[in-house]
């Protein structure tokens, strides 16, 4: 390999890496901003739209993390199904009075302090796990380069869900069934007891 070709490849590698890092930091900043907007907007529908932005940006981070199936599920289930469900309920309830009220309770500085403390707690509690001794973190891309499907590909997720995780997978279907029945029972119109 000539020296120039090697230099060119090095340059390409560098740009690819810094581009991906830049994309990650964009997605992270946009996630934090849209989460903040989602919890502070007055109009519930605006909040929903900001949380939609949050879901899509988190899906982008999942893609960067090699979790392709998770990213697809995030977009389809979270942004597609759950959020539409929330919007339907907001539409059904019709909340003109809510918009007039103050958006936060008077205790909101305490809530902000608790939130900050919780974030700090999560950060500190994770500290020993982020850099575990003895385990060299191997990014999935390097493994994929040596052959075999990447972690998070549909093939691997499917094999895991119908192999070692078959029982929890079936249990989740039971939980979803219970949730469907519960939602119908709760939201049903009761006949007047007489």
């Amino acid at each position, binding site marked *: 390999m000539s020296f120039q070709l090697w230099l060119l490849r090095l340059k390409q590698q560098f740009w690819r890496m810094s581009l991906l890092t830049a994309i990650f930091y964009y997605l992270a900043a946009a996630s934090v901003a849209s989460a903040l907007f989602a919890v502070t907007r007055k109009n519930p529908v605006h909040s929903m739209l900001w949380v939609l932005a949050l879901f899509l940006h988190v899906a982008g981070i999942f893609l960067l993390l090699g*979790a392709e199936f998770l990213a697809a599920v995030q977009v389809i289930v979270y942004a597609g199904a759950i959020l539409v469900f929330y919007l339907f309920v907001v539409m059904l309830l019709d*909340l003109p009075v809510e918009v007039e009220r103050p958006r936060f309770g008077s205790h909101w500085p305490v809530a902000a302090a608790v939130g900050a403390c919780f974030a700090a707690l999560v950060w500190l509690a994770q500290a020993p796990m982020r850099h575990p001794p003895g385990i060299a973190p191997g990014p999935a891309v390097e493994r994929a380069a040596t052959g075999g499907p990447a972690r*998070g590909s549909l093939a691997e997720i499917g094999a895991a869900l119908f192999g070692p995780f078959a029982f929890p997978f079936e249990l989740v279907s039971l939980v979803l069934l219970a949730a469907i029945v519960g939602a119908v029972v709760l939201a049903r119109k009761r006949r007047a007891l007489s």
Partner: protein
Amino acid sequence: MTLPVDAIQGLSAVLFGIGVFGFLARRNIILMFISVEVMLNAVNLSLAGFAWFLDDLRGQILALFVIALAAAEAGVGLGLVIALNRNKPGAAVADVTKLKW
């Protein structure tokens, strides 16, 4: 690619803190639920991040289960909101002071 593990876990912690703040500070039940969704997303992000850095699929599987349970939670929670709304219009937590009408 070298995504720093600290950046992803820090992002997850910050999003979780925002969710906690929203849950405690908002007075609208639906927006409290939305804050819970923000928290669940932060946890999913953390799980996917660890799955990536430890090259272990279990984190992603767990995140999938979390998404399924988030759907169940949204269904039951919003059913409750509709039932409450039937008794008392509006979705303010301050109005919900009785267990039974």
